[in-house]
C-alpha cells in the first residue's frame, strides 16, 4: 500500500513537472530570446560610471507587460523593479534584477530558475536617451529560462531530505527528556495505575494489549497530550507507546492491529485547543480567532470516530489479516 502511494507521489510529481516544462517551452512562456522594451531610470547621469554597475529602476506599464508576457501576469498598474545596470561605451550593457515582494510573479519564477539564484540577468542590446540625463529607453533580452519546474523538483528533493534529518535531530533532546521521565514513572508504577483507571475504554480499543501493559499507559498519555495540543510532549510519548507495542509484536517489521488503531487515533488528531490555527487567525486580523474551537472539536470527533471504525473494520479484511499471520503470498517462511 505504502509502496504504491510513495511511488505515485514521486512519479506523478516528476511527470507533471516535465509536462509543464515542455508545455512552457513550446509556448515560450518566458519569452526566451525576445526583445523586451522598458524605461530605465538611472541613479547617476549618463557618462558617469561607464563600465561599472549602478542601481537603477526599471519602469514598465501594466499594458506593455501584459502585451509581452500575456494577460494576468501583473497585479500593479506600473511595475517599478529595482535592478543594477552596467552600461558600456558602445551603447549596450547588462542588467540584473533582484526579485522582491513587488516583482511580477513571472519574473520571480524566472529568477528562481536563473543561473545565479534569485537574480535574473539580461543583456541591454541598445538604448536611447530619454528626456533628462538619467532616463533611457532600453531594449533588453533576458537570459534564457528553461525547465523551471524540474529544477524546483530537484531542489525540493534535496531540501526535504535535509529537512527530514533536521526534524529527526531536533527530536533528540525532547525525546531524551520524556523517555527519562517516563522511565521514572514506569518504575514508580504510575503508568500502570493510569492504565487501570481507563481499563474498560482501552480494552475496547486495544483488545490485544494486556490491560496492565506499560503500552496502555503511554498511549493514554500520548492521546491526552494530543487533545491538549501539547505536540512537543505527544510525539515522544507516542513513540514510547510504539516501542511498548512493538514488544508485543510477534512479527517485527509488520504493524499489529493495536498499532494501526493507535495511529488511526493519532492521525485523526482530535484537539480541544487548535493553538496553531487560532494563532494564525489572530495574526490575520480576525475579530474572533477562537470562533473555530467548537467546529474543530466536532471535525476532530468525526475523523477520530471514522478512524477507529475504519481501523477496526479494515483489520478483518483478508489481505490485511494475512500480513499479520504471515500467510500472504511471497512471505518468507
Amino acid at each position: 500500500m505504502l509502496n504504491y502511494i510513495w511511488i505515485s507521489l514521486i512519479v506523478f510529481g516528476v511527470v507533471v513537472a516535465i509536462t509543464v516544462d515542455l508545455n512552457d517551452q513550446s509556448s515560450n512562456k518566458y519569452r526566451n530570446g525576445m526583445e523586451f522594451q522598458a524605461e530605465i531610470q538611472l541613479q547617476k547621469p549618463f557618462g558617469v560610471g561607464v563600465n561599472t554597475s549602478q542601481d537603477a529602476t526599471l519602469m514598465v506599464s501594466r499594458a506593455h507587460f501584459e502585451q509581452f508576457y500575456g494577460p494576468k501576469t501583473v497585479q500593479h498598474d506600473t511595475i517599478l523593479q529595482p535592478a543594477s545596470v552596467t552600461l558600456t561605451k558602445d551603447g549596450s550593457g547588462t542588467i540584473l534584477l533582484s526579485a522582491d515582494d513587488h516583482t511580477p510573479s513571472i519574473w520571480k519564477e524566472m529568477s528562481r530558475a536563473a543561473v545565479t539564484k534569485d537574480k535574473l540577468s539580461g543583456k541591454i542590446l541598445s538604448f536611447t536617451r530619454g528626456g533628462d540625463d538619467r532616463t533611457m529607453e532600453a531594449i533588453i533580452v533576458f537570459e534564457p529560462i528553461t525547465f523551471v519546474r524540474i529544477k524546483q523538483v530537484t531542489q525540493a528533493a534535496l531540501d526535504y531530505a535535509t529537512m527530514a534529518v533536521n526534524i529527526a535531530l531536533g527530536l533528540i533532546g525532547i525525546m531524551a527528556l520524556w523517555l527519562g521521565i517516563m522511565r521514572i514513572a514506569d518504575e514508580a508504577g504510575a503508568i500502570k495505575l493510569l492504565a487501570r483507571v481507563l481499563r474498560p475504554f482501552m480494552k475496547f480499543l486495544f483488545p490485544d494489549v494486556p490491560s496492565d501493559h506499560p503500552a496502555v499507559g503511554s498511549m493514554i498519555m500520548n492521546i491526552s497530550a494530543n487533545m491538549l495540543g501539547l505536540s512537543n510532549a505527544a510525539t515522544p510519548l507516542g513513540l514510547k507507546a510504539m516501542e511498548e507495542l512493538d514488544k508485543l509484536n510477534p512479527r517485527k517489521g509488520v504493524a499489529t492491529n493495536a498499532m494501526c488503531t493507535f495511529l488511526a487515533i493519532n492521525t485523526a488528531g482530535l484537539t480541544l485547543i487548535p493553538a496553531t490555527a487560532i494563532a494564525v487567525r489572530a495574526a490575520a486580523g480576525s475579530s474572533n480567532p477562537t470562533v473555530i474551537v467548537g467546529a474543530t472539536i466536532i471535525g476532530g470527533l468525526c475523523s477520530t470516530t471514522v478512524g477507529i471504525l475504519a481501523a477496526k473494520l479494515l483489520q478483518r479484511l483478508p489481505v490485511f489479516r494475512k500480513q499479520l499471520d504471515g500467510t500472504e503470498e511471497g512471505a518468507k517462511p
Partner: protein
Amino acid sequence: MLKSLVSFLSIIAIPVLIFTFLLWGIFKRVKVYEVFVDGAKEGFNVAIRIIPYLVAMLVAIGIFRASGAMDFLTIALNPITSLIGFPAEALTMALMRPLSGSGSLGIMIELMKVHGADSFIGVLSSTMYGSSETTFYVLAVYFGSVNIKRIRHSLPAGLLADLAGMLGALFVCRLLFF
C-alpha cells in the same frame, strides 16, 4: 468558561506531570537520577532510527508539492466535490492537510490573506487545519521509530479519518458560519 479551563490545563499539564512523576518516584524510592539517565539514553537511538523513514516520506512529498501536481489534482477533483458544495479553495487545503503540515499551514495563511480571516473560506480552512493531523508524517515517524515497513491498513484508516474530518468541518462550518 470551558475554553479557558482547557487552555489553563494545557499550560500547567507538562510541569505538573513532570513534578508528579518525580515526586512519585522519590516516594516509591526509585533512584530517580540514575533511572532518568537510563531512559533518556534511548532518545538518541529513536531519533536516529526515524531518519531514513522520514527522508523517504518527505522527499516524495517535496517532489509532489514542487511539481505543482496539486493544481492538477484540484482541477480534476473539483467537479466532483463541488456537487456537495465543497469550495474549490478549500479543496486544496483538504488535499494538502494529510500530506504536509507546513504546506497546509501556508495554504491556510494564503486563503486568509485573500479572503479574510472571518470570511467563510477563512473559517473553514482554519477549522480543517485544526481538526486533522499530518497523516503521512505521523505514519513515517511512528512506524519508523520501531522499524516497521509493512504498515497494513493504517494508511487507508488514516486517510478515511482525514476525509471524515474534512467533511465534518465543512458540514459544521456551513451550519454555523455560512
